[in-house]
């Protein structure tokens, strides 16, 4: 087990493209740390730099306080699980899992013992003599995890390991990897573009955009208190609804197609914003049919026409336009609303977020 410290890490390619801008992070010992962001945000590059597979332009990486910038990958005591499994096709499952150990000249008995122990945890015992091509996608990914496990590394690195699996297998492997982390208590750094994976697995999550860290926080805080509009839009599915506008009197927010009385606590925050302009954000689960809002403190009612109703099992999503903004609200699966129906909606006043109109930063206190 080990902590990983990243100080002012920068990656610039010879063609001038900057993949990472002065990234600083601290991964605590035993933490399940998730790097999440859209494609091209630099998350895989960061992981590969920790593994030693990518050169560092400037900055430092420390594992357990020791600077490893110039340490070759094999000596960093990290193990990596790749998106496409990266199993050696010409070796059996046993060969794949034992390859690194044989390379380190570990005694044969110990190798067998370690591989069999990992195979038992991952339920791979009966496949040890098979070649990777004779395994299913899920089994291959388990072999890839097992190969990392037998090395007993200080840090596990996962590079989008579940992207190639179907939805059901992905869910299963997600649970298995989380269980594995609880069992091994080893530091794990996990890269994904899937925010559901990030939210369900991570003890802490880093949201990256264009090589810049947007926010580092627990999944709950990231969802409840996003640092900026990007994080608010990226975390959560369906995404948060945004309305750009201005406060026209004490408490009334006006945006194209929307006129809404905001709670005083939010209205006060507009005081510091240029021209009392701002971006109001509301999550789909915080938009209600006024009849079903119960005793919740709601902002004023808005009349809309339903565009699409999307049942997703336990819930349904209703899509509609408010001005130019395409919005989504979450309702129960038994909803009787149909596309074309005119309905009234209102926002949960306590859950409205406000963002700076130019920088996108969250505005939380006046």
């Amino acid at each position: 087990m080990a902590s990983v410290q990243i100080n002012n890490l920068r990656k610039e390619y010879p063609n001038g493209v900057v993949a990472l801008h002065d990234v600083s992070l601290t991964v605590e010992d035993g933490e399940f740390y998730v790097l999440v962001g859209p494609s091209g945000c630099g998350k895989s590059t960061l992981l590969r730099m920790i593994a030693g597979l990518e050169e560092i332009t400037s900055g430092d990486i420390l594992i357990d306080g020791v600077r490893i910038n110039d340490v070759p990958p094999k000596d960093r005591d990290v193990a990596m699980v790749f998106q496409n499994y990266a199993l050696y096709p010409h070796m059996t499952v046993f060969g794949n899992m034992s390859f690194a150990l044989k390379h380190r000249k570990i005694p044969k008995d110990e190798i067998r013992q370690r591989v069999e122990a990992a195979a038992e945890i991952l339920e791979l015992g009966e496949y040890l003599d098979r070649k990777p091509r004779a395994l299913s996608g899920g089994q291959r990914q388990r072999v890839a995890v097992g190969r990392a496990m037998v090395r007993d590394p200080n840090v596990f690195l996962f590079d989008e390991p579940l992207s190639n699996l179907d939805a059901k297998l992905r869910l299963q492997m997600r649970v298995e990897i989380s269980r594995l982390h609880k069992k091994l208590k080893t530091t794990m750094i996990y890269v994904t573009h899937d925010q559901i994976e990030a939210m369900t697995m991570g003890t802490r999550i880093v949201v990256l955009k264009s090589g810049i860290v947007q926010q580092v926080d627990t999944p709950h805080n990231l969802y409840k208190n996003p640092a900026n509009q990007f994080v608010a839009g990226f975390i959560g599915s369906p995404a948060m609804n945004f309305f750009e506008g201005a406060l026209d009197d004490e408490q009334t927010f006006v945006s194209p197609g929307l006129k809404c009385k905001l709670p005083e606590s939010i209205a006060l925050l507009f005081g510091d914003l240029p021209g009392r302009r701002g971006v109001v954000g509301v999550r789909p689960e915080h938009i209600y049919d006024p009849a079903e809002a119960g005793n919740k403190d709601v902002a004023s009612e808005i009349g809309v026409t339903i565009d699409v109703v999307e049942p997703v099992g336990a819930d349904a999503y209703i899509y509609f336009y408010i001005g130019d903004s395409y919005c989504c609200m979450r309702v129960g699966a038994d909803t009787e609303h149909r596309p074309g129906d005119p309905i009234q909606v209102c926002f949960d006043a306590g859950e409205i977020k406000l963002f700076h109109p130019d920088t996108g930063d969250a505005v939380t206190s006046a």
Partner: protein
Amino acid sequence: MRQALLKGLFYTVLVAGAVTFLYPFFWMVLGTFKPEAEIASLRLWPSEFTLHSYRAVFSKIPVGRAFFNSMLVSSLITASVLVLSSMAGYALSRLTFKGRDIVFGLLLFTMMLPFQITLIPMYVLMVKFQWVNTYQALIVPGMVSAFGILIFRQSFKSIPGDLIDSARLDGCSDFEILFRIIWPLSKPALITVGIITFVNTWNDVLWPIIVIREQSMMTMPQMVALFAVGGQAEAQVGNILAAATLLAVPIIIAYLIFQKYFIESMATSGLKG
């Protein structure tokens, strides 16, 4: 009905093509077993089988020694090309260094140069090294091939980068990545380069004739060529055919063993046969 006709026509053309290529070969092989007087006829099957032509060849030239020389030279060159060209192919496909593409461009350029252009400078070099009439002269110039490098580079490029990264994390050096991970995954490319190098080296007459004068150092094709045109065959077509057949045997055996990989590699590398 129309489809059956088309299919029939297709197979007729294929059979005609195959016969065009195979008939002269079978005619040569069977001709070695015919009495000399019968060889000129177009009839394929001998009226009586005789080994007279082979006996004449073995008695007149040191076939065993020439065969050994050819086998030694071709094997060493093939092994060397596989190792050295794959190392260069790996560097050009998997390592990043300044001037990599220029090096690759230069290598491609050397493939465009006909051997005749470098023949004289190479011979002068052999004389200066005092390698004339030695195995070095036959082996060293062929130890690495631009063609091999090109095939390996293209083949190695198709191997997923994650596999190589994974091997690096497992503790492999570049040599180990090449020989323990990439080689086992590149059998078709290795076999293609191996066969082509072996065949080209085995069949080469011009270079051995330039650098080898001593009969004990001569290779099979050199020996056969000199036997055929140098008077030792005594104008007996049977003797010449027997020598040519002996020359072709190892190549045919190698092709029969490896043809599956050979065709696979030709198909995947987009190389014209």
